[in-house]
């Protein structure tokens, strides 16, 4: 009986831990996600804003889809307890106040998701001006989280 209880507790802890993974892994995965996002926002910036003469509808749509995919991949899971301390690829820049601001974080995170989904939709139309406008709105949502929960160097 005791061994069954102990086993159950160990399994439960192990499963939840396995879901989130060790702190360093969470930090590394989310830093990878944002780095990958940066690659894709850079592509859109170049073809839609800086050098529209190089605009390729499919290329930009693929980048927007990638951004939406990352936004919808459940990044929240990578912000487990203790992930404000530790090193992934580099030192975590998550503000400790994050854990007290869960409601505000949910709001800005949802803004990001909505903006990313909208950008993917608009990118599919190939309307460069509409894409540029929505891209700007996306940037504002990125800033939303940065301002709230990311430490300035």
């Amino acid at each position, binding site marked *: 009986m005791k061994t069954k209880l102990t086993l159950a507790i160990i399994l439960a802890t192990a499963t939840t831990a396995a879901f989130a993974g060790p702190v360093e892994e969470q930090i590394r995965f989310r830093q990878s996600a*944002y780095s990958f996002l*940066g690659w894709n*926002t*850079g592509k*859109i*910036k*170049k*073809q839609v*804003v*800086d*050098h529209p003469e*190089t605009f*390729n509808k*499919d*290329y930009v749509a*693929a980048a927007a*889809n990638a951004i939406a995919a990352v936004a919808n991949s459940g990044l929240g899971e990578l912000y487990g307890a203790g992930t404000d301390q530790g090193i992934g690829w*580099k030192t975590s820049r998550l503000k400790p106040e994050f854990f007290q601001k869960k409601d505000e974080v949910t709001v800005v995170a949802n803004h990001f998701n909505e903006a990313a989904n909208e950008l993917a939709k608009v990118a599919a139309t190939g309307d460069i001006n509409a894409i*540029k*406008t929505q*891209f*700007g*709105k*996306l*940037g*504002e949502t*990125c*800033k939303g989280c*940065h301002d709230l929960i990311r430490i*300035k*160097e």
Partner: protein
Amino acid sequence: MKVTIRIWDFPTRLFHWSLVLAVVAAYITATLGGNLMDWHGRIGSFILGLLVFRLIWGFVGSTYARFGSFFPTLPRLAAYLKGRWHHLGHNPLGALAVFALLADLSLLVGTGLCSSDDIAFEGPLFKLVNDESLKDKLSGLHAQAFNFLLVLLALHIASIGFYRVIKKTNLILPMLTGKKEVPKALAIPVTGGGPVRFFTTVIIAGAVVWGVWGGVELIKPVESAPVPATTPSF
């Protein structure tokens, strides 16, 4: 016996008020973010041009615009604090403020040129910075230099207010009109500056700004877009 002199020449006044507008615009564009970040970059480059202009004008401008006439040397500072400084133009404490502002703005511009907002904006010299951690540090320093600017601006505005209320001296009017009533004994001839030097200095400042933006393109030209792979529809 008082006379009216031209204390702040037109280029200096134009520089000052352009800087006020530019700094406000830079702050607003950075705060709103999104597609306005590109304007933040352009305005920052304009401020670069203004600073280059002021640096040169400090040597070729008219008397009270020249750094030599107001540089806060230790003897001048000591005399001022003892109540023995009686000249025109920036007093030694004001001079310290001027140089502090110019230095901090230069730091802001310098770091801004090399910064990224980690979203979609990069300063024109960002790609020339090779070290990853240095990139983050420069962007962070840009933000810190702005916080310091707020302190300096608060002091600047408070001093103007202090002069207006306590010392009954209006400092804003001379910076708008360029004219000030002074005791005849202090009125030395105002020389230097002039339209030719103004025009030349503007050209040089413009060339520096162009060099920073356009020149970098020559070093690292835009590559044409790669051919995209077709994405299977999952």
